[in-house]
Structures are given as structure tokens and as C-alpha cells.
């Protein structure tokens, strides 16, 4: 009864509306009224024609209408039979005219009906909408449409996307459209040939989404058959008991598929026995004797003989069941040609990704190597020239980093403070190094092991001092904005700007040191003292002064390294200790007393550590362990490091 009334009302409304529809001020409303029934009660069969009509009208309001329609924002007012956009408002709904977009007054909630297109219809609307958005004049909207396709690709987006490519004026967006078209074609194109062509065109594409599409095509699911089927697209036949499929997993699949009874496990037997316990015995067997699996199995079989429990399924049964079935992985995609093309393409892409990952890894290794180089070069200089191992070198690194931190406390501009922190850190640690050389090391020449221990004493004192002053928590050393970005080469290869900066810094210091050692008077004297201190002294070189300057230089570089390391890691009182062993390793592996040796050592260790971390990414501790083991073995073959002085100058 109600329904009929409603229909009557609707009919009246429609006729009224039809009268209004002639109104040329409201072309969209009139078009809608012309198809009012299809708009109000859309179905899969009617919606295509309606959408086509709307698109054909070429009216400016159509995209907005489609969007609102899909999102259930279009309402039908019973009183005049017109369509409005409506939003909930105080005391009912605020109406908006579909043509003008102007406010059209208020309506009572009883007076209007929300249009509720079903999911199928909404999909059709959506794809029509995509076509509109893809052809929108606003590039931002076109981009948004592409992003939407990227997020949730579907079959019906393919056609509008294809149509929009030729119309696209923006070259960047056009490229993106072409690429998206390929990705969609790979999955949804009509003919297998088209799909294969699209799949093959993805070769060489490093994007994660390309691999995702291929992996989607190659999705597999496990299945069990008594005989191998011929009409299914089989990805692989798995042998139970191999790495890909353990026997237990295989049997679990059989059980799941209902092809075999579950194995009577130790736990099942135990539960069954406990359940069937009768005083001190189970099935007539005393409980006290059931302390081995064999005895329990025997008791269970006795129980099974009485019929109280299902018969024992043993490992033999499991093996027999496994032998009687074939375990396969099935492609979700039925066409083997497509999966084969996808597998080939994926393999090619993976290879290229591998190459790029190697490049990325090399960049990481290079940046780690520059850090080690900066941390170790000061140590190498003091060790090479003076034969002195400075265990407090790590603490000089820490002092440099804290200097940077303190400078930032006073100068809020990060760029300025960084520029100031570098020379200041050098000055602070240079002074500390000179002081240490004059007060301690000078008195311990020719006693390297005692120097090692004395500098270690200084190291623990400095570390505790830093803890007392700055506290135990990590202090930030913030890098300026221009250093916080990332340098991206492609989807796989990228490196953070800080690391680039550290690399540049290391290069600068390499150049500077080579220049000082090879081209300046100081360098000449340093080299003279390195090779023969006694002779150098008799030539009028003051070895004490040279030693002092060398030690200051080595310590100063440690300070600069501290600022660099502090920028990408936190500043703590223990940061020096974290680098000291690696620095020693770098010096030892590289060969003592040689800038190039330190460079070689840092490169080897940096690349090695990154390489090991890549092979075992979950476990950086293990990576460090293996690296140290490698170094111990390396020393076996080159006890004097990569670049060793030979002959008489080696001073062995």
C-alpha cells in the first residue's frame, strides 16, 4: 500500500519535474530529469546508458555530479522531484543546486531521499569519473586520479586511461600514464597477447609497483593431488622433505585437504592416555611405566585396540600418505604463457635490481669507509710517525662531537654553528693532543705498550669526565636542512646527504694530508722523523716539535671526525669507544705509517662490513663478529697490512 502511494507520488513528481526540465538554465537538471528513473534507481543494466548520455552532454557539472552520486551525496526531493546535492544541516538538509552550485535552501529530512547506487553501479560511475579526472584541465586533479589508480588498480580503469594518454599535454604526466597503462594492461588487458606484451615491456622497470604487479600475476597457492592435473597452471612440484616443503608441512596439507588422518603426536597420545586413565593404569598398563615414548605408544595401541581412541597413525603411515600424493604450487593465473612471461620478466628485473642494490651497497660501503677513514687517519698518523698507539683517540672523537654540541647550544643557526664547530673541534682536540703528548707520551717513547696503557688511563678518565659533565643520555647534533635530505639516483639507489658530506670531508682530508706530507716543509720533516728519528735529529730537525705537531694534527682530525660522526649518530660519552676498535683495525689492515694504507684499510673494512650486513641483515652483531674474524685471518696473510713498507725501512 505504502509502496503504491510512493509510486504515485513519484509519478507526479516526475511529471512536474519534466515541466521544469525544459528550463535551459539548468541543462544538467533537465538531463537528469529526462532519465530520472535511471538516476534514482540505477542498476547495472541502466547505468551504462545513463553515464554515456551524461558524458555525451559534455556539461561542466557532470564530473562533480558523478562524484557526488557515487559518494551518496545526491538527494531527490519528493516535493518537486528535483535532484540536489545535500548535506546534513541544522534541522534537516542543506540543498545545493546541481547546475549552479548555489545554495538551494533547506529541506526536511522526510522530504528528501538519498540516492544509493549499489557497488556495481558505483564502480561504473567511478571508472567514468576516472575518465573525467584523467582529462581534467587541472594537472593536480589528473595527478590525483593517477595516484588513485596506483593505490587501487582495477580492470575498468584501463580503458579511460588508454583514452586519456593521447590527450595528455604534460610530458611527465604522460609518461606516468603510459607506465600505469602498462601495469594495468599486464593484469587486465583483454587478450593474452596484449598482456604478455605489456608484461614484457616492464622489463628493466625498477619500480616497486612493477615488481608488485608481476608478483601478483605470479601469485601461487599450495595444493595437493593424487595425480598431477594437466589442466592447471602448475608453478612447481614440491617434494616433501626438502627445504621448500618439510614432511610435517606436507602432511599438515594432506590433513587439511582431508586426504589423511592427523598424526597421532606425542601430545595427542599423552592427552588420550590421561583421559583414559583408570586409577593407576591405562588399558591395564601401569602408569608408572609410561616414562618413555615407546611405552606410551604401546599403551595407546592397547587403548586403540579397545576402540576407545582412533588407531595410531605413525610416521610410517605419514610416509606412505606422502608418497601417495603430489604437492604442487598452483598459479592463480590460468594461462601458462602469461605466467612464463611474467616469471622471465621478473627475473630480468630482479637481476637489474640486484645490480642496482650492489651499487647502493657500494655507496653505503663508501660512506662507511669515509667514516672509518676519518676516524682512523689521525690514529694512523700518530702510530706511523711516532709508533704510539693512542687509546684515547676515541675520546678525542667524542670531544669533537661534544664541541659541536656545545657550539649548537650557543648558535642556533645550524649551518653557521656547523661551520664554526669544525675548526673549533679541531682546535680543542689539537690542544688536548698537544697537552697529552707533552705531559704523558713524551716520557714513554720506546715503550709502546706502556704508552698504550697510559693513554688508556686517560681514555677512561675522559670518558667518565664527559659523563659527569654531559650526563649519560645521548645529545643531538642537528644537521642543517641542506644536509638532511637524500640524494636519490633511482628507486633502489639513494644516499643521505650527510653521508655525501662526510665522504666529501674525507676526500678533503685525504687531499689535505697528502698535500701536507708531500708538499710542505712540515711534511718533509715528519717523513724524515718517521724513517729515521736519529738521523733527522742530526739534520737539525727537532723531533720533539715534530712529534708534538704530529700528535696535535692526528688528534685534531679526530675532533673533526667527531663532528662528522655526531651528525649522523648521537653524541654520547661512549661514542669514541664504539669506533676505537674499528679504527685500530683500519690502521692494522691498511698498514702503518701510510695515508694510502689507511684509505685502503678503511675501504676494505667499510665495504666488508656493509657486505656482511647485506648477507645477514637481521644481525649487525654477527656481522661485526665475522668481520673481526676475517681481519684476524687477513693478518695471517699480510701481517704488515695491505700497503706495507718493505726492506730495511720496515724496521722489524
Amino acid at each position, binding site marked *: 500500500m505504502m509502496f503504491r502511494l510512493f509510486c504515485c507520488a513519484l509519478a507526479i513528481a516526475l511529471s512536474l519535474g519534466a515541466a521544469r526540465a525544459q528550463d535551459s538554465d539548468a541543462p544538467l537538471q533537465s538531463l537528469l530529469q529526462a532519465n530520472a528513473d535511471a538516476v534514482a534507481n540505477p542498476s547495472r543494466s541502466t547505468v551504462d546508458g545513463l553515464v554515456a548520455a551524461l558524458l555525451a552532454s559534455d556539461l561542466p557539472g557532470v564530473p562533480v555530479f558523478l562524484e557526488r552520486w557515487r559518494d551518496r551525496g545526491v538527494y531527490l526531493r519528493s516535493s518537486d522531484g528535483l535532484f540536489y546535492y545535500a548535506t546534513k544541516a541544522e534541522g534537516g538538509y542543506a540543498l545545493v543546486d546541481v547546475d549552479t552550485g548555489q545554495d538551494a535552501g533547506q529541506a526536511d529530512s522526510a522530504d528528501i531521499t538519498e540516492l544509493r547506487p549499489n557497488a556495481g553501479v558505483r564502480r561504473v560511475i567511478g571508472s567514468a569519473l576516472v575518465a573525467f579526472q584523467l582529462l581534467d584541465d587541472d594537472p593536480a586533479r589528473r595527478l590525483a586520479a593517477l595516484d588513485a589508480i596506483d593505490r587501487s588498480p582495477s580492470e575498468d580503469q584501463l580503458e579511460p586511461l588508454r583514452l586519456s594518454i593521447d590527450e595528455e599535454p604534460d610530458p611527465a604526466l604522460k609518461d606516468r600514464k603510459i607506465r600505469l597503462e602498462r601495469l594495468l594492461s599486464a593484469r587486465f588487458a583483454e587478450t593474452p597477447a596484449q598482456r604478455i606484451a605489456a608484461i614484457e615491456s616492464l622489463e628493466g622497470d625498477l619500480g616497486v609497483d612493477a615488481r608488485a604487479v608481476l608478483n601478483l600475476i605470479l601469485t601461487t597457492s599450495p595444493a595437493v593431488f593424487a595425480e598431477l592435473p594437466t589442466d592447471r597452471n602448475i608453478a612447481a612440484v614440491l617434494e616433501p622433505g626438502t627445504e621448500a616443503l618439510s614432511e610435517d608441512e606436507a602432511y599438515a596439507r594432506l590433513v587439511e585437504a582431508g586426504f589423511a588422518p592427523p598424526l597421532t603426536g*606425542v601430545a595427542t597420545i*599423552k592427552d588420550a*592416555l*590421561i583421559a583414559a*586413565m583408570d586409577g593407576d593404569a591405562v588399558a591395564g598398563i601401569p*602408569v*608408572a*611405566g*609410561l*616414562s*618413555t*615414548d615407546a611405552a*606410551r605408544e604401546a599403551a595407546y595401541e592397547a587403548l586403540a585396540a579397545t576402540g576407545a581412541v582412533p588407531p595410531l597413525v605413525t610416521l610410517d603411515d605419514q610416509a606412505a600418505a606422502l608418497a601417495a600424493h603430489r604437492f604442487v604450487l598452483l598459479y592463480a593465473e590460468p594461462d601458462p604463457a602469461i605466467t612464463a612471461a611474467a616469471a622471465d620478466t621478473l627475473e630480468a628485473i630482479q637481476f637489474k635490481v640486484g645490480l642496482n642494490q650492489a651499487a647502493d651497497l657500494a655507496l653505503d660501503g663508501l660512506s662507511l669507509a669515509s667514516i672509518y677513514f676519518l676516524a682512523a687517519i689521525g690514529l694512523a698518523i700518530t*702510530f706511523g710517525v711516532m*709508533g704510539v*698507539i693512542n687509546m684515547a683517540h676515541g675520546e678525542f672523537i667524542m670531544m669533537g662531537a661534544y664541541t659541536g654540541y656545545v657550539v649548537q647550544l650557543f648558535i642556533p643557526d645550524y649551518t653557521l654553528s656547523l661551520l664554526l664547530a669544525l675548526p673549533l673541534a679541531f682546535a680543542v682536540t689539537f690542544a688536548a693532543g698537544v697537552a697529552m703528548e707533552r705531559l*704523558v707520551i713524551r*716520557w714513554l717513547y*720506546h*715503550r*709502546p*705498550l*706502556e704508552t*698504550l*696503557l*697510559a693513554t*688508556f*688511563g*686517560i*681514555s*677512561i*678518565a*675522559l*670518558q*667518565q*669526565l664527559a*659523563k*659527569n659533565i654531559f650526563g649519560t643520555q645521548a645529545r643531538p647534533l642537528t644537521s642543517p636542512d641542506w644536509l638532511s635530505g637524500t640524494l636519490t639516483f633511482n628507486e633502489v639507489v639513494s644516499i643521505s646527504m650527510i653521508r655525501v658530506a662526510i665522504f666529501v670531508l674525507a676526500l678533503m682530508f685525504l687531499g689535505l694530508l697528502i698535500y701536507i706530507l708531500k708538499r710542505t716543509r712540515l711534511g718533509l720533516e715528519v717523513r724524515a722523523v718517521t724513517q*729515521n*728519528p736519529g738521523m733527522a735529529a742530526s739534520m737539525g730537525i727537532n723531533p720533539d716539535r715534530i712529534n708534538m705537531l704530529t700528535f696535535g694534527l692526528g688528534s685534531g682530525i679526530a675532533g673533526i671526525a667527531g663532528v662528522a660522526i655526531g651528525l649522523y649518530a648521537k653524541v654520547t660519552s661512549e661514542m669514541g*669507544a664504539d669506533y676505537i*676498535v674499528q679504527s*685500530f*683495525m683500519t690502521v*692494522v689492515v691498511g698498514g702503518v705509517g701510510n695515508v694510502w694504507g689507511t684509505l685502503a684499510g678503511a675501504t676494505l673494512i667499510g665495504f666488508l662490513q656493509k657486505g656482511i650486513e647485506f648477507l645477514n641483515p637481521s*644481525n649487525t*652483531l*654477527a656481522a*661485526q*663478529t665475522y668481520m*673481526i*674474524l676475517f*681481519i*684476524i685471518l687477513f*693478518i*695471517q*696473510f699480510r*701481517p704488515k697490512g695491505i700497503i706495507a713498507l718493505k726492506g*730495511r725501512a720496515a*724496521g722489524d
Partner: protein
Amino acid sequence: MSGSFIARNPSVLWFLLALSVFTVAVTLMSEVTGVGLISTSFVKTLGKTLCLCLIAIAMDVVWGYCGILSLGHFAFFGLGGYAIGMWLMYARTEIIVVQSLANAPLPPTDKEVTDAIATQIFGVVGSAEFPLIWAFSHSLALQLLMVVLVPGLLALVFGWLAFRSRVTGVYLSILTQAMTLALSLYLFQNDSGLRGNNGLSGLQNLPGLDAVPQSVISIAFFWASALALGLGYVLFAWIVSGKMGSVIRAIRDNESRVRFLGYHVESYKLFVFTVTAIVAAIAGALYYPQAGIINPAEIAPIASIYLAVWVAIGGRGRLYGAVIGAAFVSLLSSWFTGGSAPAVNLGFYTINWTDWWLVLLGLSFVAVTLFFPKGIGGLFDLIVLRPVPDRQGDYGPDKGAWRREEGEP
């Protein structure tokens, strides 16, 4: 022979006498066997200190006599502790598990017991299975063998590799430090099979001796530690006296000259390195049941460096010096860091020793190296007046590491 050995080394007798007097005195002052002047925890501290003295004399032999500044002997100490800790933990957990399974409806199978123990021990690192290295942990005898074998083999292999390639001086020190670091980093992993950074705990509870109070156990371990120290002292005094000691000290002072005399220097170094590593491991096996817990932080490189500090402060090249250094510094250190040391008020700043002790230690260590290279043990020279050679430069364990002059070996 033994008579002449003691006669030639009167300090051994003096040391044994002092050790016995100390042991008896502590026993008489403890809570259980004496008048109760010393608390059980302090007896444990003293017992642990004796173990530290034992590893210190091992360090003195390898460094002060043989000239190898090993920064790895605490790794052997820790391995010894881990080896005995594995048995302690297994056996104790086994007792608990067997007790709790006794109430189960069915008598447990062996596998159920083992699985339950494994779950108890390794639950904390998310595992429930025994790793292969625990294969002997059920047996005290086998695990005691491991105390000696594992560190001994490690020292043998590492020493063979290092000495064979003629790595000496600071290089060797750094290499041993690297070995220690590698070991501790490895043990820090959860899947190392030794409970990662949780380490082994509850070691003070001896399996089956729950009824015996800790005060008794502490005295027993104190005696065992004193006995081990005494035996270790005699063993090392014997090794470093006589011709062996002569060769070892010669290697320290001029390694290649010894080689030209026809001695295979590497074998001697390997012998000393391995024997001291084994003694260090035994010291560790006695230390950790008294400490109650062992974790990888104990064998970090810093611990081995502290060991060198003790020996240097005590005076290297004499065994009693190492004992004095280890006892003095480690007891002083626990006094300062334990908060018992009175804070010094400077008016504008109060020196809190828990914060400043390491600064003091570091600086006094520098001072000892600079001004008292003979350490505390050097004071005894003032009493005994050892003949001091005068026509020489700065001979010492490290001279071999720094020689440039042509024509010298």
C-alpha cells in the same frame, strides 16, 4: 728439587704463608665458621677477589714475563665461567623441572624433561631447544673438562695464528682485543645459544644444595679460590723460575736473538699463552658461582684492559705484585663505586666518588705508568734490596717491539 725450588724462590713461601694466614683469618671472622665480623656478601667479595688475583698472576706471566700484552685473558675467564655456569643452570633447572613434572598424571619421558628444561632456560630468548654447545651440560665432569678445553683450544688456535704470523707488540695487543670484542659481540646475540645479553643467572644456587645456606657455600668457595690461587702461584713460580723462565724472559727482551739461539719462539709463546688462558678459565669457573651471574658484558675488551691495569699498578714481572695490584685495585674500586667512600665537599662542588672514581683511577694509572713503573710491588725492593742492574737503558717487555737500528737482530 722442590726444596731447592723453594730455596731459590723464597717469595713463594712468604706468599703461601700470607695466603694461609689470610684464609684462616677470614674463616675465623665469617658468620658460620667464626665470630661473624665479616658478612657473607663480603666473604663472597673476598673469594671473588682471590679469583681475580689468580687471573692477574696469569696475566703477569703472559705480559710481565713473556712480554705479550694480551687484552684477551678476560675472555678466557668468561668462557670458564660460562662453561661451569651451563652445568649449574642445567642441573638446577633439571631439579626444579623434575619436581614439577612429578605431579603430572603420567611420569615424564626424558624428552619431556629436556624440553621443559630448555623452555625454562631459553624462554627468555624465545627458544625452547638446546643448542649444540649445551650437549655436555648435563654432566658436571664433562662440563668441568670444558672449562679447561674450550678456552685452552681457543687460546691454542688464536695464539697459533697470531704468533705464526709474527704479530708482536701493540699489533698483538690489538689483535687480542679484537678477538675479545668478537667473542663478546657474538655472545650478545640471542641466538648464540648462551641466552644473549641475559647471560646465565642464578649460579650462586648450587644444584641439590638448596638446604645449605649461602654463608656456608661462600666459605667453601672462598677456600676453593684460596687453594686455586695457591696452586696457581706455585705453578707459575715454577714455570717462570729455572731455564723456562730464563727463555721466556729472554723472549720478552729480545725475541729474535732467542730465535737465533735455536729456540722456536712461537712454541714458547703458545705454551705460555695457552697455560695462562687455562688458568684464567679456572679462575673464571670459581668466580662466577660466587658472583651468581655472567653475561657478555663481563668479557668486553674493557675488562681485559682493567686486568692489565691491575698488573701494572701491582708491578709486573713479579707474581706477588700482580696479586697485590688485583686485590688492591678491585677492592678499592668496589669501595668507591659501592658508595661507601665519603663524598668530598669542595664548597662549590661535591665530589661524588661513584661518578669520579673512574677519573681518579684513570689519572692515577697514568701517574703509576709515568712515575712508578715498578708499581706497588716495587716497594718490596726497598726492603729486600734486589740487585739492580745499572748499565742498561730502558729494557723492558716492549723493547722488542721498537727497534730500528740496523745490525741488531
